[in-house]
């Protein structure tokens, strides 16, 4: 029995991923029908994201360090946070529209289709323009890597892609948990912005800037610190403000898996509470 259940589960995940791919392909096709509009919104997305880095540049026009970190070091944190969050936002960022679907009853349409609801909601209105955000983060990360004098070891090189993918997965978990919350909160979709956009903004700055309680909170409660702060501290050879052993820098994949599992449970619980508007 257990075996069959296991096969069923993986089959469901594969089904979901396939459906996600198909829906995403459809949205990309529809986006490309208006190419000029796509280019403009992507540039807009890039510019809106770049504004955060402009703020940092303006700060550094007046100071040489912030929280003991230099501009290239902060650019490193910024780029990592930007790419990880950008990938999550690109993949499932439209999930914050779920509250609207709950309110106007269009979620019912998704429930009757023979495809996992999570896959449909995640791919809903897939916005390729969000590549603008990923590109902006990557550009800043490139600048940081070019200017920083990092003592590269094989572990550090390996940690880079691992950290980016784990970070994206952690942010995906935040998006899914936020969407699950919207089953209950409906109108309050803005709350999740505090954790998604707020989270990526927080991680753009070094941990030394923030209060100890806040750093503890995002390390042990909502583990955003594993997106970049902890692994980047290891790569930069800087002490983390909390007393943690060095191997913690290599745990982001485990944290990401745990986060995704918890978010999946939250999603199921949220979906169970769904009552259609009936109209």
């Amino acid at each position, binding site marked *: 029995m257990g075996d069959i259940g296991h096969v069923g589960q993986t089959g469901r995940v594969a089904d979901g991923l396939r459906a996600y791919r198909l829906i995403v392909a459809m949205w990309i096709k529809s986006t490309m029908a208006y190419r000029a*509009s796509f280019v*403009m*919104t992507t540039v*807009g997305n890039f*510019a*809106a994201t770049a*504004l955060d880095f*402009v*703020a940092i540049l*303006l*700060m550094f*026009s*007046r*100071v*040489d*360090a*912030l*929280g003991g970190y230099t501009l290239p070091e902060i650019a490193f944190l910024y780029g990592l946070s930007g790419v990880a969050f950008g990938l999550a936002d690109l993949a499932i960022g439209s999930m914050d529209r779920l509250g609207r679907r709950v309110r106007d009853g269009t979620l019912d349409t998704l429930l009757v289709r023979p495809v996992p609801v999570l896959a449909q909601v995640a791919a809903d209105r897939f916005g390729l323009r969000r590549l603008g955000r990923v590109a902006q983060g990557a550009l800043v990360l490139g600048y940081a890597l070019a200017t920083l004098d990092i003592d590269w070891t094989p572990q550090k090189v390996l940690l880079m892609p691992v950290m980016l993918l784990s970070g994206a997965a952690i942010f995906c978990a935040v998006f899914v948990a936020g969407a699950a919350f919207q089953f209950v*909160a*409906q*109108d*309050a*979709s*803005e*709350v999740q*912005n*505090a*954790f998604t956009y*707020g989270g990526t*903004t*927080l991680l753009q*700055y070094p941990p*030394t*800037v*923030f*209060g100890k309680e*806040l750093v503890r909170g995002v390390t042990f409660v909502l583990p955003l610190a594993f997106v970049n702060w902890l692994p980047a501290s290891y790569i930069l050879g800087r002490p983390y403000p909390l007393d943690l052993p060095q191997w913690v820098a290599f745990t982001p994949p485990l944290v990401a898996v745990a986060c995704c599992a918890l978010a999946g449970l939250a999603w199921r619980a949220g979906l169970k509470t769904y009552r259609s508007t009936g109209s």
Partner: protein
Amino acid sequence: MGTGRLYAAVAVGGFRRYATYRAATAAGVFTNTVFGLILVYTYLALWDERPQLGGYDQAQAVTYVWLGQALLSTLAIGGGGFETELMERIRTGDVAIDLYRPADLQLWWLAGDLGRALFQLLGRGVLPFAFGALVFDVALPSDPATWGAFLVAVLLGMVVSFGIRYLVALSAFWLLDGTGVAQMAWLLSFFCSGMLLPLNVFPGVLGEIVRALPWSSMLQAPADVLLGQADPLGTFLFQGAWAVALLAAGRLVQSAATRRVVVQGG
């Protein structure tokens, strides 16, 4: 019904319309508070490095952060005002109904937007600000006259913000889809209003330019009045001049636009 009463009714309508969404308002308060919290720490680090940067001490810089969070939605600095709705009405042709009304188009939307702004100030602004004032060391005036002057500056900031967004919305008469323009306008106001960073921190000539632009009436001007960094009368004059200029420009564009209005379909 007198004209004054008509627009007052529209303003009350704008206020009540936004007051309906309680959960959304609570969510906004929460989000503004979290962002305020993040920004406060970055500002503290900045002022730690350069005390008296831009003429502010640390407490003033902290106050500035919470003012920004309190006024962000009030002044629709990152969008969220009437402009998307008006652009949609222009695109669909519904604006013809607005033009039919025995009311002035500009004053109608101004009244509605002021009602919205007032609600956002009370509903979304007060709580994050109070949180910031309780948790952090802030610089607040004890003199009621300064608070009064601050509120006047906020009101003028609302009018300037409306004036800019009205021009943005009217661009839809020519472009039909004004989404791109609106997005650029929000970015510009984020940068030039002092929301991104206080304008007195901007370096050199760039600082002088942004401080002379109308957007500085929105966040920087009321903040400097509250923090005692600017002379209230001079500030009112600056804001008032920009408000009049922008509203007049709005009138001109409006008359040019309505002369060429083509209502689609029907």
